[in-house]
């Protein structure tokens, strides 16, 4: 069996007070999907629940993936682990109930269902470790400069995004590379006497990661902090603005890892719409692909 990392994101533009029931998330037709993690954005403590492949609710009440902040409140966490995994069939549907106990509509709610697609052996051209090898921890970096604040792309439901397409991560020719976790941060180097960069930050930024044949690892662009995560999450943001665990580094873990042979590539598209926030400017995003070089011996 071949496992391939995959994210399904359910985007709901408006969740009215009282919530929604029976919202379908249609799965792809290429392979069964093993669900292992659920994480929400823009939902707060209102909660969610979903039905299993046997069409039974996985919980009797709405669940939340928020965690205690240690000061009596709740804060976003890493998501709710689904263990044992739930395997949905090809072309299946995850039916979701979404809560809203705030008394006001919630906009652009996103619920991430993370896991693996399960392909039979031979269905995909995948590489794996050679019989004898040595490894070296390694980090590749790709910089996407000046990602615009907003644009006209509707690739992310509910947003009008700029689209920075076909960014390429190329593995060098000296060794294979196994990508295990990802990080992405806004950054601009400052030098005495050099230009003062605009404040570097992003909020509503989404990424679609694809393999060398442009087959995506998700059904729609995934929020950058769920796929890549930041080394410097919003330390100064008030909790209500943040969907990330404050002041903690949680790398975007690829499960399973992605094995890339020499000179193979991954592609990724970046979508951003920060027009709703003040003081937003084109941002340089430093993407890091981390894992290990694999040398054949």
């Amino acid at each position, binding site marked *: 069996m071949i496992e391939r990392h995959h994210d399904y994101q359910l985007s709901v533009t408006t969740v009215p007070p009282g919530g929604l029931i029976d919202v379908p998330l249609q799965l792809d037709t290429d392979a069964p999907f093993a669900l292992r993690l659920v994480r929400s954005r823009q939902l707060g403590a209102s909660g969610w629940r979903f039905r299993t492949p046997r069409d039974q609710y996985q919980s009797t009440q709405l669940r939340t993936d928020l965690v205690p902040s240690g000061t009596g409140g709740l804060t976003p966490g890493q998501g709710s682990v689904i263990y044992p995994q739930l395997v949905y069939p090809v072309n299946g549907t995850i039916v979701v109930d979404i809560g809203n106990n705030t008394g006001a509509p919630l906009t652009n709610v996103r619920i991430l269902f993370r896991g693996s697609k399960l392909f039979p052996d031979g269905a995909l051209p995948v590489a*794996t470790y050679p019989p004898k090898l040595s490894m070296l921890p390694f980090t590749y970096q790709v910089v996407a400069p000046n990602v615009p604040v907003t644009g006209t792309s509707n690739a992310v439901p509910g947003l009008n995004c700029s689209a920075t397409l076909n960014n390429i991560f190329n593995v060098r020719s000296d060794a294979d590379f196994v990508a295990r976790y990802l990080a992405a941060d806004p950054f601009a180097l400052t030098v005495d006497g050099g230009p003062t960069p605009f404040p570097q930050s992003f909020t509503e930024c989404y990424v679609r990661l694809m393999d060398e044949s442009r087959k995506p690892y998700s059904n729609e662009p995934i929020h950058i902090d769920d796929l890549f995560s930041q080394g410097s999450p919003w330390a100064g943001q008030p909790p209500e603005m943040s969907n990330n665990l404050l002041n903690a580094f949680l790398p975007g873990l690829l499960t399973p890892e992605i094995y890339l042979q020499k000179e193979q590539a991954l592609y990724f598209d970046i979508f951003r719409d920060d027009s709703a926030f003040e003081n937003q400017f084109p941002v340089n995003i430093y993407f890091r692909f981390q894992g290990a070089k694999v040398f054949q011996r």
Partner: protein
Amino acid sequence: MRRGCYDQREVYRPQWAYSTPKGFHDEEWIMGPFPLVVPGTGALALNLPAQLDDDVPFYIRAIMIDSTLGTSEQDFPPQPFFAGALVRIRDTYGNPLTAAGVNQTGAAVDDLVLGLGVWANQQNGLNAFGFVVEPEVECSPGGSIIFDILAPTTGAAATFFDTIGPESIEFVAAVMGTAGNAFTIQLIDPGAPGVPLSVAVVGGVRVQVTLATNGASVITTTFAELQAIINATPAVLALMYALIFGPTPDAVVTALAETPLGGGSLGASFTYNGTFIGVKRFPDCL
């Protein structure tokens, strides 16, 4: 799991246990904090060594680069947070552990990668664990791990905050350092009816904004409009840009006499502290 075997159905990636070879025993060893001194001006610091002991090989399994704390050693006075720096690390055999293409300007960055999320995070404070280095890196006795660090300047751009009630606008010099202290900003009340909002650069260092008025000669320019015209005018952007803060960006601004930006400063040298966590491998006594 059999040694050296990897069953994809059981784990999401190979996890070979770090077993100690027969005839040896491992002892955990924490090296650091060791200093990494950088210029603090935005210049590249090359070949900063972390010298290892020369008794036995050392296997690095975790690393932490933090500007104030490595393990439990504290630095006084507090140094800047690790707000982001480009870093290249080479092991004791000269192998780089990073690869990078170009930066935001298209210039080659010589395999310096943003260290946040790789070997450091923004949160200051004690950290018992560090960032995992996997697989472990074998280091020769007496070898040196070499760091190259390109850290942002610790200097600042000149700024000026104009606050009216709960709303503020900050004018930020477009050049880092002391040069921006010569720039000025002036918000002019034209004292006439129906004047449109406009901006001009005078003498190469003075930004003069003529505020808009209504039919009664009352200023109508808002914080948001003021920010927009500043940031949309290339000649002004060469001197400064504007940020607004507060809950009422549509509040009306007031006239401001010519005011210099201030606080622009140059960077100064500072020290990152690094820590390695790993094991020393000793041969068993015969």
